[in-house]
């Protein structure tokens, strides 16, 4: 009988292997197995940027609000890469770091009046339309959560990174896992509601 069980185990594990191999293409952005306590953790690849922007300095040490640079997040679907003159606005005046190689590179772009060719780190499929404005308005302005919590839910703890790196699966199931939670409607109420469950909110 033991032999039977052993054989069965071998068969089952073999099938599990085949199954997971088959399941791979079905699970873009991370399989269900890779769950952690806050949802689905799936570390993205390291993205080579034109130069290494230190989020840890800006958001971490300086404690600058994310929306100071990513200004469009509260009024547009896209959060936007900060415009070059925004960088210059400060860095023109900060003498202490002017000679650092990254800042030199920044000045080079500014002198050429060329935008910096940043690479997308959180690049959703083209048929997915995530709206930053709605999430920021709801969780930052209405529910009064902290900006690090609001942005960090999807983008991870950017204050501890230099260039940003994807840390969440960003799969549809992950989106829905949050949409089906009950969220407070605003900071001063106990009334809750959840995110929309309508396909056309994100796909159109």
């Amino acid at each position, binding site marked *: 009988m033991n032999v039977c069980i052993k054989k069965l185990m071998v068969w089952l594990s073999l099938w599990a292997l085949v199954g997971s191999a088959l399941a791979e293409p*079905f699970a873009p952005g991370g*399989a*269900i197995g890779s769950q952690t306590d806050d949802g689905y953790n799936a570390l993205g690849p390291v993205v080579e940027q034109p130069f290494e922007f230190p989020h840890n300095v800006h958001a971490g040490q300086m404690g600058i609000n994310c929306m100071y640079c990513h200004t469009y997040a509260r009024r547009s679907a896209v959060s936007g890469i900060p415009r070059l003159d925004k960088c210059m606005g400060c860095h023109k005046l900060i003498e202490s770091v002017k000679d650092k190689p990254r800042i030199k590179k920044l000045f080079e772009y500014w002198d050429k009046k060329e935008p910096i060719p940043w690479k997308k780190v959180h690049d959703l499929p083209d048929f997915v339309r995530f709206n930053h404005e709605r999430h920021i308005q709801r969780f930052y302005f209405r529910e009064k959560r902290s900006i690090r919590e609001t942005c960090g839910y999807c983008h991870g703890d950017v204050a501890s990174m230099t260039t940003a790196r994807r840390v969440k*699966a960003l799969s*549809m*199931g992950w989106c829905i*896992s949050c949409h089906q939670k009950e969220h407070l409607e605003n900071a001063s109420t106990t009334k809750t509601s959840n995110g929309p469950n309508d396909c056309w909110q994100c796909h159109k």
Partner: protein
Amino acid sequence: MIHTTDERDIEVERRFVPKAKDINDEIAWAQINKDVLRSMERPRMMYWVIFLASLALFSFGVYCEVRQYQSGLGMADLENPQVWGLYIATFIFWIGMSHSGTLLSAILHIMHADWRKPIYRFAEAMTTFSLMTAGLFVLVHLGRVWQFYYVVAYPNERWTWPNFNSPLVWDATAIGTYLTSSIVFLYFGMIPDLAICRDNAKGFRRKFYWLLSLGWQGTDRQWANFRVTYLTVACFLIPLAVSVHSIVATDFAVSQQPGWHITSFPPYFVAGALYSGCAAIITLFIILRYVFRFEEYMTMPILDKTCRLTFAIAMVWTYLNLIEYASVWYGSDPYAKETLIFRATGTYAPYWWAMNFLGSVVPFALAFKSLRNHIPTMMVVSLLLNLGMWLERFMIVTPTFAHGYYPWTWTGNWWPSWIQWGIVAGSFGWFTMLFMLFCKIFPAVSMYEVKEMVYHRFMARKARAS
């Protein structure tokens, strides 16, 4: 000793069926093994002709499908509203063809119809392969075939499910169930025969049959479990087969289109399915009998019985067909009536009349014994019947699109492109290829059941003699 019951049966049989015997009951068991095993070794030349021809046809179908896959379904000249074309029509055709395998192997098994024994195996194989072919059409037909797995209900990272309301999901479930059950049934019923193959094969083939025969030794325990299981699966298969084609019928009947939204569609489809399947069995019967030299087993009396069965089903189909026309004609839906008139008088009228002629008049050839026993005639008639049944499916799909609710999008004389015809032809190649391969690799005649048949007759004869 214990053959008294058999004796009584034989008496009854003799009184009502006094004529030719289904099979020569003096044939030795060893001879049965030898004959069938030989068929797997050295068939006639014709085998290779058929096989290569079907391979060529299949390759052409693949070529057409590759072109369509790369450029889009526009290659098939599909359009709004002719969105389905030949693919769905041929899909129904193949699904339908699968049904008579179940009829022969399951229903007649339960009813202890002995004559089915030499022919049910290939009929069952036909079921399996025509289902596979039908499944192929579902894929060919899809606009984004690479996403076909969205239809399957499985937990996924998108947290989405298919739409269980859709008859297509019922279809997918039903056909999936039918295909797996058919394969199980076909394989299961073949295990004793696979053991025979194992015992007579050498080299890797022995290993192959050894693996498949699951250690069959013909022990009493194996036989007892086998009998119960086989019977149970057969019982499951009968309602399943009926449900499958009923569900295919609901693809149309559940929709709202005129000419489709008809209550009698499910039985009509089931009858049509059995009909075309039986006709296909006659065709394959004739081919196999020649190619594999099965004259001893696939005897003329069996062909005769099959033909009579086909005739009976043809008449059932004819009746249901007329009922459909009548219910539409006397019904209160003016659009459906309009579609019916369009079928009979519009662009596709020649095909409609051809379908009715081939489906309801040609089968009367089966009513004549002299014709039933003339093999070339039966070959032609069975092919014609299947052509008629294919036309039936074409006439269900196309005219409703051509003349539906919305007059602005009616089509004048829509005709499928050569890509569609190529893929349809390729499907016949694919089916024949698979079928021929099967007959070469697996015993096409059930040896152990023919032995049973011979044994019972022999015993009965012996009992009578004593």
